[in-house]
C-alpha cells in the first residue's frame, strides 16, 4: 500500500511482529513501520472482531493500538521503533495485566 522514497531509506533495525523478524526503518513509529512492511491491519476490534488499521497517524483515533514489549493498547503512531522491540498485533479485548 506504501512505498518508500529512495532518499528516505535510512538505517534499518530489526523488530519482532507476532514472533516474526521484520526489518524496519530507524526513525519510524510502530504504526508507520507496520504499514511500510505491508501489514494490512494491526488489531481486531473488541466489539465485532473486525480488522482495524492505523487511521489518523496523529494520536487521536486509537485504531493503531498494539502490544509493545508486553504492554497492551500502546498507540503505535506515537511510539518510535527500537532494535529488538517486541510488537504484537491485538485480537479483540485486552487480557487483564497487559
Amino acid at each position: 500500500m506504501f512505498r518508500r522514497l529512495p532518499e528516505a531509506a535510512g538505517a534499518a533495525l530489526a523488530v519482532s511482529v507476532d514472533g516474526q523478524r521484520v526489518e524496519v526503518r530507524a526513525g519510524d513509529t510502530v504504526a508507520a513501520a507496520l504499514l511500510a512492511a505491508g501489514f494490512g491491519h494491526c488489531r481486531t476490534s473488541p466489539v465485532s472482531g473486525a480488522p482495524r488499521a492505523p487511521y489518523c497517524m496523529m494520536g487521536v483515533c486509537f485504531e493503531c493500538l498494539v502490544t509493545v514489549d508486553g504492554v497492551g493498547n500502546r498507540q503505535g503512531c506515537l511510539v518510535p521503533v527500537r532494535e529488538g522491540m517486541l510488537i504484537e498485533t491485538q485480537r479483540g479485548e485486552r487480557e487483564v495485566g497487559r
Partner: protein
Amino acid sequence: MTGAAALDDKVDVAVIGAGPAGLAAGALSARAGLATVVLDENPAPGGQIYRAITTTPVQRKEILGTDYWHGRELVRELESSGARLATGATVWSISRDLEVAVSHGGRAHLLHARRIVIATGALERPFPVPGWTLPGVMTAGGAQTLLKSSGLVPEGRVVLAGTGPLLWLLAAQLLRAGGAITAILDTTPRQNYVRALRHAPAFVLSPYLIKGLRMMAEVRRKVRVISGVTRLEAVGEGKLKEIIFATGNGAAARMAADLLLLHQGVVPNVNLAMSIGIVHRWDGLQLCWVPEIDRHGNSSVPDIAIAGDGAGIGGAVAAAERGRLAAIAAVRALAPAAVSGLPAEQAVMQALAKAEAGRAFLDTLYQPSADFRIPAGDDTIVCRCEEVTAGQIRANVALGCEGPNQMKSFLRCGMGPCQGRLCGLTVTETIAAARGVSPAQVGYYRLRPPVKPIPLAEVAAMPQPESAVKAVVRR
C-alpha cells in the same frame, strides 16, 4: 531536554503542544526570562502541519513545499530561547491549581506551572461514511504524516475524497513525490460556491488565494477530479476493495481502490480544554466547538490560555501569532518589566489579522455537507471504538434520549479509547438533527481526565502531594 526528572519541577509557563502555536508561545515566553517548558506527545516538535520538521527524511524541498519549511524557523526560535522542549511527553491531566500531569519516559510526573498555554491544535473532522472503519481507509492527514515522517508514498489505486485545502495540498505533495492518484472525489457542495462569493473580496487579500489556485491547477492537470459528490461508501471484506459514489442526484458508480484517503476539514481538539471545564460555544460556520477566549487566548479558567487551532481554526500562520499573544499575556502577568523586550503587541495583532483575512471565505466554501456529517444510512458506524451506528443513536433519540451523555449510558458511544474524538461531533449533530434543535442545545460529551490513557502503575507510583495524603489519611 531529555531528563525525565526535570518534569517534576516548578515552571512559570507550561505550554502543551509543540506545533506552531506552542513553539511560538514557548519561544517568546522563555525569551522574556520566564521558566518555560513545552510538552508534546510526539517524538519530535512541529505539530501536524510541521510534523517531523527536524527529522523528515524527505530531502527534496519542493515535495512538501516552502510553507512546510517555515516550521524550521519556529523550532530554531524555540531552541535559542532557553525554553525546555520535552517530546514523547503525554499530558493526561491539568488542574485548576495549574498542575500538569505528564507521562514521560514510562513515569508519571506532576509539573507545577504559574500559567498554562493549551496549544493542542486540531484534528480532522470525523467522516462517517459506510465502510470508513475498513483497513485501506485512512485520513488524508494520516497519509501526509507518513510522507513527512517516514518518506512513505501510497501506491496502487489511491483515491482522495472530501473537501478542503488540505486535500489539495496532500494531492500536490503526493504527485510531487512521484505518487499516482486514481481520482479525487470532491464533496464540496455546489451551493457553497455561491454562498462563499460574498466573502470573496476579503479573501483576495489572503496570501492563500494565489497559492491555492496554483496548487489546484497543478493537481487538476494530472488527476481526474470528480466534483459534486453527494454519496460515498467504502466497500470490502476485511479491507477496502472498491468505492461507491454518486454525484448530484445521479446513479451510483463504482471505482476499484486500494487506499481511500478521507478529509473534510479540521476542528479544534477540545479534549484537554473541556476536561477542565473551559467554556466552549458552538461555531455555526466552522461547525464545531470553540473555546470562549479573549484577544490573548485567555480562557474562562484563570491563568489558562488557548492558542492555535485549538482556539478555532485559523491555520498555521495565525496559530503562531496567537501563540505569541498568549505568551505576551503570560509575560505581562508574571514579569511585567520584560514586556518591553518583546515584539509590540500591536504588530502581532496586525500579523494575526492578515493571516486570518478571508477565513470566512474558506470556512464557507469548504463547509462540509450534512450528507457527510450526519449519516443518512442507519447502518453507518458513528462511534468507531464501540461500533455504535447512526440508526442506534436515532432510535435512542426516539426513546427520549436527548443528549450525548445520556447516549453514552445507553450505547457506550464515546466511551472507547478515543474518548469521543472521532465521534463526538457526529453524535451531537445526529441527535440535534433528529430532535430538530441546534447542536448548542444538545451539547457535548462531559470529558474527564485522564484525557489520554496511561498505565495504572504510573499513577500509583506518583509521589502524592501533602494535600492528597491529608484528604485520605486519618490523623
